[in-house]
């Protein structure tokens, strides 16, 4: 192993890697392992898993390619990277599909074993790209990953097929070597994950090590890279995806509200994981009902809220559409439930595994009658944790349904999370009504919230329902004036929440030529773009909405202070519509609906287009 010392070591600030292969090649696993290790060694990072709607499309096809992109750095990371610097392509289809997005002078590591005529044909390559000039200009490392793996596993009791499946660990080991990462975390994981099958543990560990060793020995790698730890605030960290953070957020809300958590849900990509996580928290008393459909999911949550639980339902666009009638019932009965919509590509079934921001207007307006609800949005994977608590707080305090929007990108993407101290989390405990004296189901407190008197409380027996309620008594009322009054009360209740949420914060100067206003999962991208624009001298600031209904009280004031407002969205301009109707101001829009996160370079382009040479230079 003397050669090791001869290899060049280069320091990098920032790398974006994309792993790509067949859906059966384990790319999501490889990516996740690389991310976890990378987080653990102290880099900041952000990830973008991107998988097809098919479970395991036939091997070698273009539509079966699964990818995992990871951006890590010794600096602050806000996005999974606009374009990868490094592409690990396990087969021709992976190369074909991902090449157009690679950095023009990026690096490609290919599994040469898979570039056989059959796979080339499946990938619709006329000639072998490793042999023609397709890859000119890239740094190409040709590694026979499959055969190196089977060589390494010679003598393993596993079948040929099983051995072949270990090649992702070889690739991972190789990448660990290249970026100077320890094997330890992955080794632990393998041992735990496959505890029931020692042969598989052995094989995967061997493949991992072989890949790492290959890096050391091979001559094709002349340089090894170091990406130093990022300067993150002090604390204990973990790497976490949005869906897991959200699940832990609701678990925390349950603990902090001292209410049992109830989830009524029906599986749907990309929200199913939340149901899966919460189903495993049984020793926290969490009750999960996998309902027969989305309507039953939300209806059971309404029932659970009536009975005094912190009640939740989770879904994505098509399921959200099905829940709207029942959400109206929660509005009328003024029960606290949280509805999570992990947005995906639409309309209809659309692009089920891709991200989008096009359910915003549905969330705000998509119910019959005047049925106002609070609408919140999370902006990063870790923000999902805090917004889950915040959504619960608002629901409980105001006795109202709250819709929390996330999206496929932040739900599946991950980033390091400084784990909060439990004591720092807000106390959101509530008290049920128990006093008989003066009890009326629709007599409100200062927040316009009605009392929560749950079944089981002696003397407070009462009836609620979807018919219009008389003010105070809650009896059914067809009185015209009462209806108008109640319509306005329900509306004001939601409006008043504006007094109880943080002001809209501006990142950058408080006045300027342009404010980039966003919401939801585009946060990192916009932050990156604005940072770069400011660095280039433009007078640009950023503001990001985590509360959409109601909007923060100062929103109008903030907007007024800039010459122009740019609202980039992964839809055709839904927040723009809300802002325009609310503040009657012109806004610039950037809308690109590709099922993928926006790219900061595109936003930067839009900023410079809007401000022209106006960057003070």
């Amino acid at each position: 192993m003397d050669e090791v010392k001869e290899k060049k070591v280069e320091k990098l600030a920032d790398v974006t890697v994309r792993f790509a292969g067949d859906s059966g090649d384990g790319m999501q696993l490889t990516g996740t392992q690389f991310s976890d290790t990378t987080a653990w060694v102290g880099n900041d990072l952000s990830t973008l898993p991107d998988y097809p709607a098919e479970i395991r499309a036939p091997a070698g096809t273009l539509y079966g390619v699964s990818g995992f992109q990871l951006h890590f750095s010794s600096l602050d990371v806000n996005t999974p990277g606009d374009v990868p610097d490094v592409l690990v392509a396990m087969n021709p289809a992976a190369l074909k599909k991902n090449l157009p997005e690679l950095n023009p002078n990026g690096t490609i590591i290919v599994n040469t074993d898979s570039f056989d005529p059959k796979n080339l044909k499946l990938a619709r390559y006329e000639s072998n790209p490793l042999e023609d000039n397709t890859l000119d200009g890239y740094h190409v490392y040709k590694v026979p990953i499959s055969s190196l793996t089977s060589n390494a596993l010679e003598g393993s009791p596993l079948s040929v097929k099983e051995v072949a499946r270990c090649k992702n660990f070889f690739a991972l080991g190789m990448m660990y070597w290249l970026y100077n990462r320890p094997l330890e975390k992955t080794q632990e994981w393998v041992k735990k994950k496959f505890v029931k099958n020692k042969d598989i543990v052995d094989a995967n560990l061997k493949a991992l090590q072989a890949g790492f060793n290959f890096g050391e020995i091979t001559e094709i790698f002349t340089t090894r890279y170091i990406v130093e730890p990022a300067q993150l605030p002090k604390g204990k960290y973990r790497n976490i995806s949005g869906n897991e953070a959200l699940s832990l957020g609701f678990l925390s809300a349950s603990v902090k509200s001292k209410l049992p958590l109830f989830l009524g849900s029906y599986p749907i990509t990309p929200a199913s994981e939340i149901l899966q996580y919460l189903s495993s928290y049984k020793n926290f008393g969490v009750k999960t009902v996998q309902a027969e459909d989305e309507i039953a999911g939300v209806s059971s949550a309404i029932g659970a809220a009536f009975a005094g639980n912190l009640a939740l339902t989770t879904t994505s666009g098509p399921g959200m559409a099905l829940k709207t009638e029942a959400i109206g019932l929660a509005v009328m009965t003024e029960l606290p439930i949280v509805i999570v919509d992990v947005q995906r590509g639409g309309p209809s079934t659309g692009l089920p595994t891709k991200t989008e921001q096009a359910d915003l207007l549905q969330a705000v307006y998509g119910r019959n009658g005047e049925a106002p609800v609070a609408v919140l949005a999370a902006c990063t994977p870790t923000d999902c944790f805090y917004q889950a608590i915040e959504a619960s707080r608002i629901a409980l305090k105001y006795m109202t349904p709250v819709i929390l929007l996330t999206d496929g990108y932040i739900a599946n993407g991950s980033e390091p999370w400084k784990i909060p101290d439990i004591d720092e989390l807000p106390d959101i405990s509530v008290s049920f009504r128990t006093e008989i004296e003066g009890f009326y189901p629709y007599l409100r407190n200062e927040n316009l919230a009605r009392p929560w008197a749950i079944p089981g409380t002696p003397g407070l027996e009462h009836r609620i329902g979807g018919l219009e309620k008389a003010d105070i008594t809650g009896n059914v009322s067809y009185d015209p004036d009462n209806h108008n009054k109640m319509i306005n009360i329900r509306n004001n209740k939601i409006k008043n929440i504006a007094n109880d949420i943080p002001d809209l914060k501006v990142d950058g100067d408080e006045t300027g030529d342009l404010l980039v206003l966003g919401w939801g999962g585009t946060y990192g991208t916009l932050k990156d773009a604005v940072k770069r624009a400011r660095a280039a001298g433009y007078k640009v600031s950023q503001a990001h909405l985590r509360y959409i209904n109601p909007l923060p009280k100062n929103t109008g004031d903030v907007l007024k202070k800039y010459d122009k407002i740019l609202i980039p969205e992964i839809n055709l301009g839904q927040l723009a519509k809300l802002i325009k109707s609310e503040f009657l101001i012109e806004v610039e829009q950037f809308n690109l609906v590709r099922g993928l996160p926006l790219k900061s370079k595109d936003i930067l382009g839009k900023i410079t287009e809007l401000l022209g040479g106006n960057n003070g230079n």
Partner: protein
Amino acid sequence: MATNEEVKEKKLTAKDFASDQDVRWCPGCGDYSILAQVQRTFPEIINKDVEKIVWISGIGCSSRFPYYMNTYGFHGIHGRAPAIATGVKVANPDLDVWVATGDGDLLSIGGNHFIHACRKNIDLKILLFNNRIYGLTKGQYSPTSEKGKITKTTPFGSIDYPFNPVSLAIGADATFVARTIDRSPKHLQEMIRRAGEHKGLAFIEIFQNCNIFNDGAFSLLTEKDTKDDSVLVLEHGKPMIFGKDSDKGIKLDGVKPITVDLASGSYSKDDLLVHDEFSDEPILAMILAHMTDHPSLPTPVGVFRQIKRETYDGGIRDQINLVTEKRGKGDLAKMLYGANTWEVN
């Protein structure tokens, strides 16, 4: 106003179950009888405190029921009562959860929630007010309306076959299935009592007269001169005898029930089918359910089937207890700090 304790102490009567709301059904509606029998039965059968009772409903005339019961109540949305009730029961298995619903509510828009509640054996008591019509929307045909029925939406007669609610419930593996009639107060009370005692999903189909839009739908079964010959009252362990003079019986011909004349002397009680409510197999119940396919056979009322099975809500509670026992009560800090953490200093 009374204190919580005072409220708890008083001895219950039917009146205690009447809420302060005026009952708004049409005069003469069969729903009145159902309400009265429930209110009469509850003081006896309710082994829980009043505050533990919850009535849930969907939308329809029948679904106004909760407003008239002085218990916790929830008038839901159309068809979703079983789903709302599931949430209530799972959230708090200590509650006694009753569902009042109609043939449109439960079997048309709500059919899926119903069959899933049956299959899952959620501990709910479902009272189906079957008037074979949509009452509240003023007289359209329902999934239990007989084929050929002329209603507002079927001016030339309906063309589809009705559901047999008892058959549907049995097909979906309900653990308690019964049928009764609004105009048979004692029997109705008995069925309510039996349902209340059952641990698991209890389904009662109640034939209910809508005197405005489907008057007389069940007159054969309720009118003095025809009812005895048209109704078969099921009793566990007893041979199936009916008729004005208890002179007719039901016998099996293969798997086909037939009516035999006991008076003629050719048949005796011993030839008759004996009812077994508790059979593990759903077969006898299915035979009885499908007697209504044959106009020549009487319509059975009573408990078709009652079996024991773990309840869904019980299962959830038990699983939580089991996992908690095994893993210890969840510790939020541990959970957040989870696996794979690192320290930045």
